[in-house]
């Protein structure tokens, strides 16, 4: 009997010691804005897939290009077909680390500035990016917010309207509740 208890206890202990808590969401929000000179070019994606590991700070984001919603259907079609070529490159993703994850106390409510470094892959092109954001904890639920800029041409996205009707640098706002 004692042996069994001991064995059970050790299992439990091992679980506690090594389990890596992974936070995840499939309903993060990303707002994309590439408004150029006149026409408003804004899209929303409410199906951002993201996961991060509490201990290591490893973090990933993934979005389907086709799930961006524009106000105008034609604009959405152009975005997919002419610029993002979503048939060829259906997904955009980010893989990186929250470099200062150790500063975040997950047990209590609070708000922490975070630094995220990693690789953004978009339109088949990967670039290293470094983004500042805010990780807030409320009732044990982390929420990551941040915005960053995407220089469109760095991702081999071409089109004569870029830099004119379409901004050269798109702004992306991210909001993920895990």
């Amino acid at each position, binding site marked *: 009997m004692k042996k069994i208890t001991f064995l059970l206890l050790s299992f439990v202990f*091992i679980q506690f010691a090594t389990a890596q808590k992974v936070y995840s969401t499939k309903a993060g929000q990303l707002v994309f804005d590439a408004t150029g000179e006149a*026409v408003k070019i*804004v899209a929303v994606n409410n199906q951002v897939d993201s996961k991060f590991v509490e201990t290591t700070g490893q973090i990933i984001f993934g979005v389907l290009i086709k799930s961006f919603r524009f106000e105008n259907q*034609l604009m959405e079609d152009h975005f997919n077909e002419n610029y993002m070529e979503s048939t060829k490159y259906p997904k955009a993703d980010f893989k990186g680390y929250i470099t200062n994850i150790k500063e975040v106390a997950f047990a209590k409510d609070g708000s922490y500035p975070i630094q995220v470094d990693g690789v953004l892959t978009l339109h088949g092109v990967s670039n290293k990016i470094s983004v500042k954001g805010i990780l807030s904890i409320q009732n044990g639920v982390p929420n990551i917010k941040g915005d960053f800029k995407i220089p469109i041409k760095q991702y081999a996205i071409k089109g004569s309207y870029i830099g004119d009707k379409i901004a050269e640098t798109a702004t992306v706002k991210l909001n993920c509740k895990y």
Partner: protein
Amino acid sequence: MKLHKSIHILFVLLFTKTISAQEVDLFAIKDEKVEDITTAAFKSSRVINGQSIENVGVGVLDFKILHRFGNINQGAYNLFGLDQASMRMGLDYGVNKRMMVGVGRSTFEKQFDGFVKYKIIQQQTGLREIPLSLSLASTIIYKSLKDDPAAAYLSYTSDKISFAHQLIMARKFNDYFTLQFTPTLVHYNLIANSTLPNDFKSLGISFRQRVSKRVNLTGEYFYRIDKLNGYNDPLTLGLDIETGGHVFQLHVTNATGMTERTFINETAGSWSNGDIRFGFNITRAFTLKKPKVLKNID
């Protein structure tokens, strides 16, 4: 007993090792399969004259002007047909993801028409593999042109109504090419003479071939299975030119009318005689209802 304990400890140690070796690596996670609906098989909700597999966007009101000039073979006196015009003005609206409705008024026979188009099956990849899209379109056409008061038979209102039912089957093979088949049934409530049937079957074949990012070549042909004498199969070739806000469709055709009944079954012109005409469709889209997801953004 002592030995047992040490075995336990060894066991525990071993176990710890294996577990901690299984560190979570998010980068190694494979992508899940997600639903990927094929979009933009055609650039407009009309291939040229006929319905395409596409609907206008949800909450979008599309104002369409379909314009056809006169026959080119009339020569320079009529400026190759440009002196004459036939047109259809229409409003299309995307009710939901699957359904669109539209109304129109043509100068030809002063026709009024209304239609409903419904997506039954959508081509998609990912979670499910569906190789083609299927839609149903039903049109009602009312000829409001007044009868000659001296005519032997004065028609009832119902006599002036005809219907067209179409099953639209399309496959977008890639970003460059789409092929569509459109089996069509046109029903006339009243037909000129009793030896003729009231129902006319036909098969439409349409395509879109991308030429450049903003220019697509389109074509549309209807093979009439049941024929009205003295008319020809309609054949239309066009270019879809996309500008930022809308699609401009330019084409040459032997069809005059722009409602299903008219252009499929009552195309008098023949390509071999040079009875072809220039035409264009212009559209202007107004977003009446913003997508819900966009409402909470600034």
